[in-house]
């Protein structure tokens, strides 16, 4: 009975509760990451007036502290939407262009973990080149 009380005291002490909570949170986070790291990046491209642009090329760059690395291109479909499947980074730069319509600013995409599944909420807007 004495040992039972001691175990309960240990379990309730902050030296157990705090590390245990940290371990629980860390595990839950890793589970979440494992379920959402398919590397898919989805978005859509519009022109200055807001109409979807078909056939625009979206350039995807991976960013570190000092370098940009080209990771590939995708083309938008008929509804202006594009999907990039092979993202392995947590920090991307996207740039879209279409001959005759214009090119966009560099859109920065920062993720909470590598290859996070992300659907970009706002469109990449093509501005006409002067």
């Amino acid at each position, binding site marked *: 009975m004495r040992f039972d009380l001691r175990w309960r005291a240990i379990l309730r002490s902050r030296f157990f509760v705090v590390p245990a909570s940290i371990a629980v949170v860390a595990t839950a986070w890793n589970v979440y990451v494992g379920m959402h790291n398919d590397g898919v990046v989805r978005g859509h491209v519009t022109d200055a007036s807001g109409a979807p642009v078909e056939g625009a090329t979206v350039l995807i760059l991976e960013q570190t502290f000092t370098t940009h690395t080209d990771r590939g291109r995708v083309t938008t479909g008929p509804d202006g939407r594009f999907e990039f499947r092979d993202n392995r980074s*947590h920090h991307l730069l996207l740039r879209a262009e279409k001959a005759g319509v214009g090119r966009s600013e560099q859109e920065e995409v920062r*993720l*909470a973990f590598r290859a996070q599944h992300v659907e970009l909420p706002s469109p990449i807007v093509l501005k006409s080149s002067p």
Partner: protein
Amino acid sequence: MTTLRPRRSAAQRYPHWPIHLALLVTSFLMLVPFYWVLKTSLTGENIFVYPPSLWPVHPHLYFFVDVWYLIPFPRWLLNSVVVSALAIAANVVFNAMAAYALTRHFRGKRLVITLLLSCMMIPFQTTIVPAYLITGRLGLLNSYLGMALPTFSTIVCIFVYKAAFDAVPRSLIDAARIDGLSELQIIRRVMLPLSSAAVATNVILSFIWSWNNFLWPLIVVRDASMQPLPLGLSRFLSDHENTTGALYAFCIMVLLPGIALFLMAQQQFIRGLTSGATKG
């Protein structure tokens, strides 16, 4: 008939608000660096822009993500954890054993205690050159053991244990010996459980010292992959200087375990520092 004086005489009753004011100002000044680094790690807007804004503007956690992926932070974290674990384990075992020996009376005890106290006067920084040569001769350069070895025992903690062990009633020890326990078992089953405060103090002190240790790993470590966090932080600083908020995110990530542990075990930490202090 004189009236009974109130417990606090007029000379001792004093207004509290100036003290509160002074302490509030002091606390504010002490906390400003924390706030400033937290703000920069969350926004990074001040890196190239002047004047800085006093409040976080568009805070985000992405600098922390950068730190985790773009530099070998997980590896450095592992190095720090391993070295600290080694130091803590060795500290508890060696210090408890030495303190237990010091609770007995034996010839030369006074000499040993004087020796230990005089070793406290030798700061680590005056030993770095030969310590490096010794570690090299032992073949422990660039290894976890080499990084942890000088911190395997601390004199302050020995005396903390000794004070705690001295308070254990002699009858308990005698009873345990009659029960047939060996001396090591006595330490493990009788002394340590009764001195849990001293153990907590030892764990906290040795963790903080080994986690924050910078000079010794700087001397001993050659490979970038064996660096513990302080070295990694310094390396990051020299690589990237002030060009990214991730440096400050790195600082925050490195400070959090120390702060968390300190807040959890403040009493033990303070007692360890002052009892070591009062012992000379």
